[in-house]
């Protein structure tokens, strides 16, 4: 029997597969396709201090092997999420990770503090990397000092383990990772989307109403692998990897690069069953490459 279990701060995962934030809503829609208890965990869509409508449409565009999105953090606000969405997800036997977003340090603190009041949330993912709203935290995600500061502040108001979600839109990803580790982060999630743009030929203007959007899907996988590989050589906190995962081989690649678990985003749109299918295929893929457990494979690709 291949052991798929992984223990991370605050998260006892029966397998390393979870849906990525923003690509799975709050689980309701996908629960009509399969039993969410099959998942390793679930990461909820971003929460802000109060309700947000988000950007104008169009909000998505297809690209070669990927897509751009500029949803703009649309969500009903942290209180409403705790009231209506968290209890629903709590019906399933899976750890719940809340994605915390904001435009000021105070907003991050408020959202984190509010999640801390429910015992149904197991960890926070600090989204300092949303490229789609002007004040969407991206400034925190591109400056190591600001990232460290917001991490420290949130750590103070919450007892929950904090996974800081890193933006790939930086020249020195290792500096970002080291800064938030030093500030007390319990783990990292990476990567968020890469900032991009598509021009619509018929009207000759940017296609997305927001003009720029975040690139996700298979196109960004090599960027994610490279960044995790580099970061894992300099930090000791665990990494939840993501970026273009669409099958069990991709998962193994992330594990080898140093990720302890992974999140699947865009691939849910093409195949709503992608997470349970990967979970089912993973043991055979691990075995094929000589591993008896997920734990065995973590970081084994790093050549020093």
């Amino acid at each position, binding site marked *: 029997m291949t052991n798929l279990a992984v223990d991370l701060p605050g998260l006892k995962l029966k397998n390393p597969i979870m849906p990525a934030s923003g690509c799975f809503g709050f689980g309701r829609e996908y629960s009509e396709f399969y039993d969410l208890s099959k998942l390793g965990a679930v990461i909820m869509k971003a929460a802000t201090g109060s309700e947000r409508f988000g950007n104008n449409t*169009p909000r*998505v565009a297809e690209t070669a092997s990927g897509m751009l999105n500029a949803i703009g953090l649309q969500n009903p606000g942290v209180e409403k999420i705790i009231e209506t969405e968290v209890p629903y997800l709590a019906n399933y036997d899976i750890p719940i990770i809340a994605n915390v977003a904001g435009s000021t340090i105070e907003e991050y603190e408020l959202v984190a503090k509010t999640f801390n009041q429910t015992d149904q949330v197991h960890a926070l993912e600090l989204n300092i990397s949303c490229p789609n709203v002007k004040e969407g935290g991206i400034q925190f995600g591109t400056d190591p000092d600001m990232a460290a500061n917001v991490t420290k502040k949130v750590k103070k108001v919450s007892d929950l383990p904090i996974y800081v979600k890193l933006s790939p839109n930086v020249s020195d990803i290792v500096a970002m990772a080291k800064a938030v580790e030093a500030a007390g982060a319990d783990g990292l999630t990476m990567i968020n989307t890469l900032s991009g743009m598509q021009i619509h030929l018929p009207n000759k203007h940017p296609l997305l109403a927001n003009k720029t959007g975040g690139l996700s899907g298979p196109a960004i996988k090599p960027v994610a692998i490279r960044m995790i590989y580099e970061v894992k050589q300099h930090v000791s906190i665990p990494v939840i990897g993501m970026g273009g995962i669409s099958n069990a081989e991709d998962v193994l690649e992330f594990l080898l690069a140093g990720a302890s678990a992974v999140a699947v985003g865009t691939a849910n*749109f093409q195949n709503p069953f992608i997470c349970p299918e990967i979970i089912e295929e993973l043991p055979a893929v691990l075995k094929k490459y000589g591993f008896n457990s997920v734990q065995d494979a973590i970081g084994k690709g790093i050549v020093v």
Partner: protein
Amino acid sequence: MIKKEEMLIKSVKSIALDTIEMVLNNRYISRAAVPGQFLHVDIQGHTLRRPISIADVDKSEETVTILFKIMGSGTKHLSAYQTGMTFSVLGPSGNGFNIDNREAKSVLLIGGGIGVPPLYYLGKRLAEEGREIISVLGFQSAESVFYEQKFQELGESFIVTNDGSYGDKGFVTNVLGKVKDFDCYYSCGPSPMLKAITERLEHKHGYISLEERMGCGVGACFACVIPTDTSGGYKKICKDGPVFSSREVTL
């Protein structure tokens, strides 16, 4: 309920300029589909699925028909699929047209271009229930006109082309004056057309089907939302729609 299903292509036919009719076999979809719902179609080599309306259903043959226009790489690729091949869809998706309104004895169908397909299955169902059907269908030009005969079988039909090469010249709104009174209207087409219609027929009870670029197609990703008022209220086109009451959303 939306399921992930395999559709078997029974036939592929070009029925107008760049316009393809595909008859697809699938028991579940043919039984579950109601007029106005769509299929979220997986096309090889494409990250995102493409929403295509259900244009007709034959429950005894267990088939559904889709009609689509070749617009970009996805629909182009799909048009090259051949009889006997299968592809994956999510469906039947969304909320269809409300056809239970017994008061509506006579209905007007207003379709623009590739918004015409969902109105055909709707009209067929309404006609079966004994409602009087009047159709106004707009196309770019003579060579893009399709299903004229089929709509005529349902009731009086008016064709309009933008360039006047067939039927009346102009937009669907140009012929609304010619149409006799009706109880309720149903419309699908480009947003500017829907906006013009909802303004023109403000006093009438109506349903409109909207288009927007979609991600997941099941209501999870918030790509295809439309405001319902100015205070942040919204609906998801893929899940709450694509059909809305004409007064429900802000175009």
